[in-house]
């Protein structure tokens, strides 16, 4: 059974790490989680990013957060990637599978997947 003692152990382990994490997060992944996003399947996409980023050891570099309606409901689930000194990348019609690819190629490899972006859809 899960116990509060395990949480105490996490606290112990995190003692020094928490301070380290602040001020990092060079890349921000933002998942649209308004009614439109949720109805279109944003919840599993969010999960895929949260899990994937941690499993790939990117947590120091990448923060995953949620936002409301981005204003392009027909393209939901929408995920925006913000990186210092770079233009924002807007991925559309996301799925957990596409999220895994974005983690691998974009967040890890630094290469935008143009096919999944809104720029491509509007071109």
């Amino acid at each position, binding site marked *: *059974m899960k116990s509060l003692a395990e*949480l*105490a152990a*996490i606290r112990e382990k995190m003692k020094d790490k*928490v301070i380290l994490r602040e001020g990092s997060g060079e890349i921000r992944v933002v998942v649209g*989680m308004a009614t439109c996003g*949720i109805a279109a399947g944003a919840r599993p996409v969010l*999960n895929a990013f*949260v899990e994937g980023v941690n499993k790939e050891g990117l947590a120091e570099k990448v923060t995953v957060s*949620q936002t409301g309606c981005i204003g392009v409901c027909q393209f939901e689930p929408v995920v925006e990637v913000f990186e210092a000194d770079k233009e924002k990348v807007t991925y559309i019609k996301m799925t957990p599978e596409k999220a895994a690819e974005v983690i691998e190629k974009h967040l890890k490899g630094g290469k935008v997947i143009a096919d999944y972006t809104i720029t491509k859809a509007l071109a």
Partner: protein
Amino acid sequence: MKELSLNILDIAQNSVKAGASLIEILLTETPETLTIRIVDNGCGMTAAQVESVMDPFFTTRTTRSVGLGVPLLKLAAEQTGGSVEIVSSAQAEDHGTAVTALFNKNHIDFTPLGDIISTVTALIQGAPGIDWQFVHSRGGDAVTLDTRELRAVLGDVPMDQYDVMQWIGEYLREGYAALPACE
């Protein structure tokens, strides 16, 4: 929405936006019914606002002018012969909102609850600074989670820390495994 847990995720976001410091998600099942209550201590709404959130063309959002959250919940409840009630107060002393939705589980148009654990973890991940109380009671037993209890142990460690999120997911899964199935 394909799952009621998605409606819950959506409606609870309104409580986050209302500046609540505590949000309760209370699910109560009987053999015939499911009651979903989302209670917050946020800024609350005026009587006129409560009236208008039921209307799909009312929203506080500025990016577009249609708000479907409450109407979708209302639709899901009413199509089972159930209902949605909103009680809210915007008074300085005692403010907050309680949304109560009643469903008839045995109705053919009842939407399944779905992955409620993912909804709880997504809510905590999205608003780790506020407190969440989750109670799902069924057959005289309940699955419960109160972030205030976790926070007392975690101290400064943020609730959205991955290890903590995993613990919460696992804790809830164990709770559900021990909860009696529908009677």
